């Protein structure tokens, strides 16, 4: 490990440790998937504290307010942050998704309007892609955007679903159909919309955890300003796909440190409650630890791989690999907890959260089934599914 990276790690630790031991102590290891509904106001404060310390948007170019870290430095940052128990990032959709998209595709006006709020931790974003009748068929967008010829603004009607953190956010980016009668990938527009306006309603979705971190967002004539279209009308699909490309970034190593923390809790629990004496549990704990090690090597391969714009095999298989590893970790957590796993003491404990919430990992952002299709078709060159006849029962 280079001296530069080592010093970055030390700098972060020096900054983070006292804060997580002091004022922000209750946030340690909190937030993140399965725990997103926790401590909203405090985590927003934390985002601003991060910004004051210069630790937000560390991978962004300096001209946009970032720190301009190299890939290796970003890896070190995310790993160290998560290792020390840094709270789940309320700002990750701004920092990781829409920010990079605006840097790549936004107008200078859009960049000036939106990037500073993301960097400062004062404006929060959520994502409006999925629709109730689309599911895995992401291009089946039915939300409509109609331009007012007078103002140039777009009026939006429709419904988005599985919108994480909508209730804590200020803005949403929305994929909508701007060419009536168009189908699939064509005729879509990528809009930036304020959530606090008439014609927007946010309804939380209660999950199997009993908590809500996903929402439905209803649009009934809400407005996107003329200047808040990213790319050209009709280019929505291209922008949306590019944005998803930013998701597979270095932050995956931070996610892995969260996993490592969960595994550590699990090992401790197994030692305390005697489950560590059960041979099958021992073997599964070992397998989980080795599997996590392999996920880390996989992520490092992704970063070391040729930067040729293609998704290589290790990248194509990564979502399937980590989500199924994590779901299995959740099952293992339930089995280690034993009958006590069914008992709730006030709120779900961390391992119960992992057990229940990991069920969503193999569903969102491309179900297992979609991932396997992608792998088979893109990596192995197997034929695409034949289109059905008019009567598929025939």
């Amino acid at each position: 490990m280079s001296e530069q990276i080592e010093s970055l790690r030390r700098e972060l630790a020096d900054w983070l440790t006292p804060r997580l031991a002091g004022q922000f102590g209750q946030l340690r290891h909190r937030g993140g998937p399965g725990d997103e509904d926790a401590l909203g106001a405090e985590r927003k404060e934390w985002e601003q504290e991060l910004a004051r310390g210069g630790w937000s948007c560390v991978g962004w170019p300096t001209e946009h307010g970032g720190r301009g870290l190299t890939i290796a430095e970003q890896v070190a940052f995310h790993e160290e942050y998560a290792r020390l128990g840094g709270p789940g990032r309320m700002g990750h959709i701004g920092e990781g998704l829409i920010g990079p998209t605006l840097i790549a595709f936004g107008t200078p006006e859009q960049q000036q309007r939106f990037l500073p709020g993301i960097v400062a931790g004062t404006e929060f974003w959520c994502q409006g892609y999925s629709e109730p009748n689309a599911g895995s068929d992401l291009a089946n967008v039915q939300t409509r955007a109609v331009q007012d010829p007078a103002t140039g603004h777009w009026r939006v009607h429709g419904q988005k679903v599985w919108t994480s953190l909508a209730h804590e956010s200020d803005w949403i980016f929305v994929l909508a159909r701007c060419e009536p009668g168009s189908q699939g990938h064509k005729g879509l527009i990528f809009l930036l919309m304020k959530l606090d306006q008439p014609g927007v309603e946010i309804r939380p979705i209660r999950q199997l955890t009993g908590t809500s971190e996903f929402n439905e967002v209803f649009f009934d004539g809400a407005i996107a300003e003329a200047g808040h279209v990213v790319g050209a009308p009709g280019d929505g699909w291209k922008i949306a796909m590019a944005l998803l490309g930013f998701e597979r970034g270095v932050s995956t190593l931070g996610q892995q440190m969260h996993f490592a923390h969960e595994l550590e809790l699990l090992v401790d629990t197994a030692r305390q409650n005697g489950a560590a004496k059960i041979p099958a549990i021992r073997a599964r704990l070992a397998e989980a630890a080795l599997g996590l090690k392999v996920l880390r090597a996989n992520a490092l391969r992704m970063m070391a791989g040729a930067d040729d714009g293609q998704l290589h095999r290790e990248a194509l298989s990564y979502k399937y690999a980590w989500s199924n590893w994590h779901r299995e970790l959740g099952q293992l957590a339930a089995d280690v907890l034993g009958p006590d796993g069914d008992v709730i003491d006030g709120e779900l404990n961390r391992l119960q959260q992992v057990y229940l919430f990991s069920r969503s990992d193999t569903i969102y952002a491309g179900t297992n089934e979609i991932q396997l299709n992608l792998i088979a078709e893109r990596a192995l060159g197997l034929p695409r599914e034949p289109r059905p006849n008019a009567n598929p029962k025939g």
Partner: protein
Amino acid sequence: MNLELNQDRQMIRGAAEDFLSAYSDSAKVRAAHAAGGIDAEAWRRIAGELGWCGIAIAEEHGGLGLGLFELALLQEQAGRFLLAAPLFATACLAAPLLAEAGTDAARQHWLPALAAGELTATVALSARGLDPFAVGDGMYAGRDGDDYLLTGRCRHVPHALGADLVIVAARFSANVESTALFALPADAATLTPLATLDQGRPVAELRLNGVRLPAEARLDDGDAAAIVRGLSRAAIALAAEQLGLALQCLDLTVAYVLERQQFGRPIGSFQAVKHRLAETMVKVEAARSAVYGAAAEADAGISDDELLLAAASAKTVADAAARFAAQEAIQLHGGVGFTWEYDPHLYFKRAQAFSHWLGSADAWRERVAAKLLEDAA
């Protein structure tokens, strides 16, 4: 060993299905969850006019004198419809334990009332919960003249709050062979309800601190093997409920994938989805074979060793089916499978909770391996 679903059995199953599909639908189940885990109305009818509690109790004790097979058919439907009532605790756990391990006096005193549905009952088995391999662990029995003094705690006592009879397993020494069973008066029990993920099968912790019981509170006559037999029967009945959970997850999911359209076709037309559901059905059918086979063997009268093997096959195979089917129900429902509103999570949580009751698959497998390999491991 009779595995035939003859007319009588079909009638029992059909009647249970008809009743529960009407009286234990999703809305009623959720209402029961909010009301402490018991659907009082359903339970009143089940225990009363339907007479389910007496189905497997001998005629001499006022029951119908049918077998574990018939009880399993009811339990399968209870699983399918997520019955929120103490049928398992009363008729599947307490009753067979009394029938197998109780003295004549105990059986004559308790079984007729259980058969008539006049009492709800449960069993406090150990500090580790409903663990058949740790019976009496954590609860100590002492003697004072003719009286007994009980001290200790039991966890995960199912449907304990409001039970008319709590049977407590306690040991005179560390030795499991020294386990005895006691009838605890309702007012003597210190019960702490525990909030659970599966809100339809509430459990409580029982603590006793030198509680004095008269000699006649002792239920068993010191035959440890009889306790094992009773618990093996209970495990088979629980496996039947897991079978029902698995089956309903499969049925719910088949219906959903036929309805739900993606990419211009029902998702149930995708071969990957079809195969996953076919694999689920293979596991469900294995669970059904295991449960029906075990129940029929138990009814035919088999050795204690064979009964242990029968219980092991039913419990491990039904656990696996229920967990797999519930996992796949969530997965194949996609996003909505993950919501509170849809039912898959109710099955998922119950299947997981049950997998730890009356012996985990790991524990049963090791028990079988020790027999198979004739060692103690």
